[in-house]
């Protein structure tokens, strides 16, 4: 099995706010990330696709095709956007690094037709990232509290 990884950078604004909590609770839990004017990051997305290379082409999938999928599904939706206000996939969700990875997984997974989506990694900054992967065997082995 081969893993192929492609990177995409996008810049976006966000803030953390749960409307079901009081203003005070929001400030306590989210700190300065709760600033209603928002703030931004240069996000770095790494998408990994796993599979066997096609014997005819030597490729798991055409990286050009993957680049186009990332442009269409991620960059066009999120680049230079405010995630809370302009990206409908975050309606009712707080655009944390974890949720961004999960949303991107949901967008890409059905579009990857050669190989299978193995991992979506989203760097919010060089010292912080979230990973989204398929749950091993669909069980809850990795998600215990």
């Amino acid at each position, binding site marked *: 099995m081969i893993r192929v990884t492609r990177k995409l950078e996008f810049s976006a604004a966000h803030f953390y706010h749960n409307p079901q909590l009081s203003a005070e609770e929001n400030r306590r839990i989210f700190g300065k990330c709760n600033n209603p004017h928002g703030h931004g990051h240069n996000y770095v997305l790494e998408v990994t696709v796993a599979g066997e290379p096609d014997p005819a082409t030597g490729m798991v999938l055409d990286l050009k095709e993957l680049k186009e999928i990332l442009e269409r599904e991620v960059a066009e939706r999120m680049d230079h956007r405010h995630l809370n206000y302009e990206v409908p996939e975050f309606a009712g969700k707080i655009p944390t690094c*974890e949720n961004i990875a999960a949303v991107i*997984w949901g967008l890409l997974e059905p579009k990857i037709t050669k190989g299978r989506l193995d991992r979506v990694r989203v760097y919010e900054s060089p010292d912080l990232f979230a990973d989204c992967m398929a*749950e*091993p065997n669909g069980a809850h082995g990795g*998600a215990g509290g």
Partner: protein
Amino acid sequence: MSGPVKLSLTRSYRFAASHRLYSAAFSEEENKRLYGKCGNRYGHGHNYIVWVTVTGPLDPATGMVANLSELDPFVERQVVEPFDQKYLNEEIREFQDRVPTTENVCREIYRRLRSFPGARLESVRIQETGNNSFEFVGETGAPQQAAEGRAR
């Protein structure tokens, strides 16, 4: 969303410390052969970068696996504060009788972090220099007690 997914969050922390790779269980000659310049008598130091990965279900109220406002002070208290600007061999009790290779530092940091209450600790990776890194992934599936026993 398509199929169940697993989410993890990884954060890096830094500390600078000195160490010496030397074991009293070996002769001087064997130490020299095993550890080379890493065994020089007065030790040497690194700028360590520690990548801590935690996993678990998203808290529906926060959209987070773990809140950094809890993870950061926990790692600071358990690891950065005791390890930063220290001589690991003498100032960290666990290395007084165990060689502070970065493999062993990984396991010790994992042991110090596994009680994090906010999420499940998955792995600890340490970059010792720009050219090497070490990762301890815990004992997945093993009973808690057994994992703790081995990590010590």
